[in-house]
């Protein structure tokens, strides 16, 4: 997330990117595994870069539409990134027109295992997560400059039949959330992802759980989740509201407040002890490309959709 604030919020970087480049993002975990045209194209670019021998292919690449590698950088800070971008542009300018403007072939069959897409009729709930501090009984965002002070974003995907189930639940006077949705939320979305990729919770780590909606659509719940050695955990409450109309979610908002503790392999630097964490779930129409990117927890799709299985 440092890149977002330090590099991509820099006016000079922004101007150069907007004026001189086509900017695109990718999840390396998926992309390096894809057994399709896009995966092959990506690997061919990486093979020309300093990342060719690395397991991870993370970083910032400049390339032509035809796949010619022009630059790479994985340092944080606008100066080095600008230097790389400018050097790559110089190489670009030296290319023949035929190298710049290659015809892009049609894309063949897509490797669906590593290219999850929002199912027909499914809806998106954006999940914002922030480390909070308690001051005189009030919760505030953690001060700037501390590790993990920025808001993190993920996406909860709900299938058409799960939304229909919410509708039936409301019509019948309310009750517990559908089991797959409840476990999906617990395992993959009640996470502290403010410092990187957290591991998801295991089913047996969900020690206490209740998540209900009443006939008016009022959501209420509480939970206690912890690793079996108790070095990492999250305990809190959930409250919100949902509205279903014509088989579609018209409104979904939920506020989660709790205390989180501990860290996992890729989320080092947690604050000591049990500290406040806030999450806000809000329905999103998915009009922008960035709103349609898959949930972090969907890397193994069956486990995301049927987390009980």
């Amino acid at each position: 997330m440092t890149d977002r604030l330090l590099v991509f919020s820099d006016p000079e970087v922004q101007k150069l990117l907007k004026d001189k480049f086509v900017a695109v993002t990718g999840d390396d975990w998926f992309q390096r595994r894809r057994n399709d045209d896009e995966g092959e194209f990506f690997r061919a670019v990486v093979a020309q870069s300093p990342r060719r021998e690395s397991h991870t292919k993370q970083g910032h690449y400049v390339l032509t539409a035809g796949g010619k590698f022009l630059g790479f950088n994985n340092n944080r800070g606008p100066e080095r990134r600008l230097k790389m971008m400018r050097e790559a542009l110089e190489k670009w300018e030296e290319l023949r027109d035929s190298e710049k403007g290659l015809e892009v072939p049609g894309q063949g069959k897509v490797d669906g295992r590593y290219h999850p897409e929002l199912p027909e009729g499914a809806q998106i709930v954006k999940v914002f997560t922030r480390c909070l501090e308690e001051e005189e009984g009030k919760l505030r965002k953690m001060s700037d400059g501390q590790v993990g002070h920025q808001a993190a974003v993920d996406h909860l995907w709900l299938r058409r039949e799960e939304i229909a189930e919410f509708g039936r639940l409301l019509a019948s006077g309310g009750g517990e959330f559908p089991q797959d949705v409840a476990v999906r939320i617990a395992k993959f979305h009640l996470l502290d992802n403010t410092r990187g990729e957290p591991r998801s919770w295991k089913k047996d780590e969900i020690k206490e759980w209740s998540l209900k909606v009443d006939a008016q659509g009022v959501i209420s719940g509480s939970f206690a989740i912890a690793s079996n050695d108790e070095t990492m955990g999250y305990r809190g409450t959930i409250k919100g509201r949902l509205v279903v109309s014509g088989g579609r979610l018209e409104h979904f908002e939920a506020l989660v407040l709790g205390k989180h503790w501990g860290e996992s392999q890729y989320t080092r630097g947690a604050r000591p002890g049990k500290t406040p964490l806030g999450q806000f779930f809000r329905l999103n129409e998915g009009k922008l490309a960035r709103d349609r990117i898959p949930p972090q927890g969907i890397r193994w799709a069956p486990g995301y959709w049927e987390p009980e299985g």
Partner: protein
Amino acid sequence: MMKFGVTLGFIFALQAALTMANEKVIAEILPSPSESAWLEIDWKTDLWEARREAVRTGKPIYLWEMDGHPLGCV
């Protein structure tokens, strides 16, 4: 009736207060405008589409790859 009205009024006032408190916390949780400045860049999420646009516009491609989607959780 009076007692019921007072009780109901108290509950509504309490709910309103709770909602206002929630709104303040939600505002603390959501990304601030300065945190969202990087989204002023028109980030695409489809490399093939980016290739086509690069040809159309005569520009090179800037590809940001991360383990965990750059526009997502991390």
